[in-house]
């Protein structure tokens, strides 16, 4: 099952790709991508449903709530690589079209 590659989804994927093995917090991704919670979480949920993202609960410090952590699965990393290729190909196509028209 593929994920629709909206600009917001691409931003989230980029945020994960910086250090793909690192577990990330939702707020951290939100700050990195500039997406609000209302946009970010549906993307994370869809990614998790498609097994592109793995989640875990951090053991919280005393007096602070346990936080949810996210990381790309191997399938997720593969998907990011493929989507980057697709985007690169689209970019090249657009440049070529521009040159041809110019």
């Amino acid at each position, binding site marked *: 099952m593929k994920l629709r590659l909206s600009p917001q989804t691409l931003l989230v994927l980029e945020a994960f790709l910086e250090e793909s093995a690192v577990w990330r917090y939702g*707020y951290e991704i939100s700050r990195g991508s500039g997406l609000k*919670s*209302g946009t*970010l*979480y549906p993307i994370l*949920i869809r990614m998790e449903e498609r097994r592109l993202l793995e989640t875990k609960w951090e053991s919280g410090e005393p007096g*602070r*709530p346990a*936080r*949810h952590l996210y990381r790309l699965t191997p399938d997720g990393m593969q998907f990011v690589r493929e989507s980057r290729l697709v985007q690169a190909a689209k970019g090249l196509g657009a440049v070529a079209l521009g040159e041809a028209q110019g």
Partner: protein
Amino acid sequence: MGFVRSIAHRMVAVAAGFGPGRSQEWARAMLAELEFVEGEWEALWWALGSITVIARRSGQEWIRLCSAEMRRWERLAMGQMDKMGKKTGLLVAGALGTAVLVMIAFALLYLTAVTFPQLGIEQAEWTHILVVIVIPAIICLCGAAWLWRRKRPLAVGILLSVVAVGTHVVLHFAHHFARR
């Protein structure tokens, strides 16, 4: 925790309570993250976004759960109807089988009476009772007993028609003796 943040926290906590199963985990994740959002108003915006996500997810999951439950009931009802239909069919088949047997016996008796009028079968009432009622009834009762464990609705159908024929005979004799 500031006033605005505490309001935001309460709003998300309340919304999180409505989500079924998996939605609740995501709601808890957004609620936990709210504590770390910098700035009071940013926390409120985070909360409002989270509530939107929770409401949408919960709505979708409730719809999915309700439709799954409805499908389950539908399957159950259809299965029940199938079973009922099969039972009714067997019951009717049993009753029709008995009726056919009685009609065959009656036809044989009529043919014998027409073919061999010298036997005087038409005048002998006991022959009618024996051939049309008693022998078919014995056959039916034996058949019903044999079918009782194998195809009970069929056996019940046979027994019901035997009872109907028996009642008819009893009423016939009661009427006959009452006239005398």
